C-alpha cells in the first residue's frame, strides 16, 4: 500500500509563515508541534502541511521527526488511521525515523488507538530503528484480542480469498455478544467495501476493526460495545470516477436493462443546473455511486450496486449511536440514516424529499475535506447494545 500520495497530493498552496511556528529543528531532529485539541480532519490537514513545510525547508533530509501532540480528543477512527498511513509513508518513502509524543483522550469509538501501530512510535521508547520496523509490521497485520487489522494486497486478494475475509470478520465479532443479525450485516458491509476497493480501484486495501466492549450507555444503563471500522484504499480512482466514466461513455446497445443508467443521466441534467461551490459534478457522481443497480464496473449493466447504504442504514438504526462517513478526494459524504431511504423505484435522494431527480442532496450530506485524500476511505463507528452479561 503506497501512502506517499497522501503527502504529495497536498504539497501545494503552502503558506510557510502559518506553519513556521509548528515546525522546528532541534538537536538534529524535526519537531512538529500540534496544539489543536481535536484530532480530526482539520488536524490531519495541518499535519500534512507541516510535513510538506518541513520537507521544503530541510530539503528532504532524512532527519528524525518528532510529532508532539498536546492533549487532544480523538474525534473518530479514520482520522488517526489516515495519520498511521502518513507515518508509514514518512518511514518507507522518505526514510525518516519517527517518534510520537501524545496524550490522547479516547472513548468508545476511538478506543482502537490503544491497539494502533502509532503507539509503537512512542517517544518513551528510545530504540528508534526497531520501533519503526515494528510499526511497519503492525501496520500491515495485527490480529489480537479486540483488534483485527490487515492490509489486503490486490495481487493476493483479487480472488476467492475475499470470502475468507467475510468469514473472518463475522467470526471476529462473534465472541462479543452482539446481535447476530448486526454482526452478519456488518461483516457484509465490510467485505463489500473491500470488494469495491479491490475490484474498482485495483489497489491494496487496509481493513482495521476494533471492538470496544465493557461500556455502559449513560441513557439506558445497558451494556454496549463499540464496533469501529475503517476500510481504505489509496488510488487515483476516486469514488465517483467509475460512474462518471460509465455515464459519459454510456453504451445503449450493451445495456439490456435500458432503464437505470439513462436515469442517472436524467438526474445529472437536473443537478447540473444547481451546481455551485458547495455542490458540484464530483459530489453528484459520488452520491450516484451509492445508487441501486448502478456500478462503476465496466461492461456490466444488468447487476451492480450492492445495496450498501441500505445495509449501513439498517445497522445504524439498530445502534445506540453511530458515525459513518466516507472521504474521497477532497469530499466527505456523511452516511446519515435519515437520508438513506430508497424511493419506490429504489433511488436514493440523500435529501429531505427523498428525491434523486428533482432535488440536490441535503447540506448535511456533502462536506469538504481540509485535505485531499487520494482514494476512498470509510469511517464506520457503531455503538451496539450487548446481549447479556458475558463479554470479553
Amino acid at each position, binding site marked *: 500500500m503506497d501512502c506517499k500520495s497522501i503527502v504529495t497530493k497536498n504539497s501545494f498552496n503552502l503558506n510557510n509563515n502559518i506553519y513556521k511556528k509548528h515546525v522546528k529543528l532541534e538537536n538534529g531532529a524535526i519537531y512538529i508541534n500540534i496544539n489543536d485539541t481535536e484530532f480530526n480532519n482539520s488536524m490531519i490537514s495541518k499535519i500534512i502541511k507541516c510535513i510538506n513545510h518541513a520537507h521544503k525547508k530541510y530539503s528532504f533530509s532524512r532527519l528524525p521527526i518528532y510529532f508532539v501532540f498536546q492533549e487532544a480528543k480523538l474525534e473518530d477512527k479514520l482520522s488517526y488511521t489516515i495519520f498511521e498511513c502518513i507515518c508509514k509513508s514518512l518511514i518507507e518513502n522518505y526514510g525518516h525515523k519517527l517518534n510520537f509524543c501524545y496524550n490522547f483522550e479516547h472513548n468508545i469509538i476511538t478506543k482502537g488507538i490503544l491497539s494502533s501501530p502509532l503507539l509503537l512510535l512512542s517517544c518513551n521508547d528510545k530504540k528508534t530503528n526497531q520501533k519503526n520496523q515494528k510499526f511497519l509490521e503492525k501496520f500491515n497485520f495485527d490480529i489480537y484480542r479486540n483488534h483485527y487489522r490487515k492490509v489486503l494486497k490486490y495481487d493476493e486478494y*483479487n*480472488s*476467492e480469498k*475475499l470470502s*475468507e475475509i467475510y468469514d473472518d470478520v463475522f467470526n471476529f465479532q462473534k465472541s462479543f455478544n452482539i446481535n447476530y443479525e448486526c454482526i452478519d450485516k456488518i461483516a*457484509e458491509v465490510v*467485505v463489500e467495501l473491500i470488494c469495491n476497493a479491490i*475490484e474498482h480501484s485495483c489497489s491494496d486495501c487496509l481493513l482495521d476493526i476494533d471492538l470496544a466492549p465493557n461500556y455502559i450507555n449513560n441513557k439506558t444503563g445497558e451494556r454496549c460495545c463499540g464496533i469501529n471500522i475503517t476500510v481504505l484504499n489509496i488510488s487515483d480512482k476516486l469514488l465517483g470516477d467509475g460512474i462518471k466514466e460509465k455515464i459519459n461513455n454510456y453504451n445503449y446497445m450493451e445495456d439490456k436493462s435500458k432503464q437505470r443508467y439513462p436515469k442517472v443521466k436524467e438526474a445529472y441534467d437536473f443537478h447540473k443546473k444547481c451546481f455551485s461551490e458547495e455542490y458540484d459534478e464530483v459530489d453528484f457522481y459520488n452520491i450516484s455511486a451509492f445508487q441501486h443497480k448502478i456500478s462503476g*464496473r465496466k461492461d456490466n449493466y444488468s447487476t451492480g450496486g*450492492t445495496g450498501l447504504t441500505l445495509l449501513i442504514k439498517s445497522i445504524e438504526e439498530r445502534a445506540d449511536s453511530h458515525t459513518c462517513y466516507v472521504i474521497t478526494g477532497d469530499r466527505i459524504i456523511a452516511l446519515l440514516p435519515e437520508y438513506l431511504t430508497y424511493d419506490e423505484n429504489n433511488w436514493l435522494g440523500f435529501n429531505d424529499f427523498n428525491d434523486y431527480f428533482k432535488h440536490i442532496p441535503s447540506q448535511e450530506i456533502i462536506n469538504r475535506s481540509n485535505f485531499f485524500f487520494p482514494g476512498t476511505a470509510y469511517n464506520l463507528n457503531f455503538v451496539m447494545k450487548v446481549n447479556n452479561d458475558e463479554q470479553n
Partner: protein
Amino acid sequence: MMNKTNHIKLVFDKATTRLAYYPYGKEVYEQQVKPNIDFSNDITYIEFPDQIVKAASSFVQGFFEDIISNIGYEAIEKKIVILSKNESLKSSIKTNLIF
C-alpha cells in the same frame, strides 16, 4: 408433458461458509454452471453445499449476471431454483437479486 430440468451441484472449499466478490461469483458461474446450464430447460436446480450460509451481494451479482442477461430478472424465479439447507443463503440470494 414433463418439465425439462437439470441439476447443478456446486463445490467450494470446505472451510468457506460465506461468499463474496463479483469476479469470484462470475468465476464460479463460468466454471461450474455455464458448461452445464441449458436455458431452454424449464427449471435449473443449483445446489449449494451445506456449509455455505450466506452470499454477499457482489458474489450474487457476478454469479447471476449471465443468467439475467439470458433469461431476465422476471424468469429467474420460475426457471432457477436454489437448493440449500440454509434458509439464510436462499434468502440472501433472493434479497440481493431483487434489490
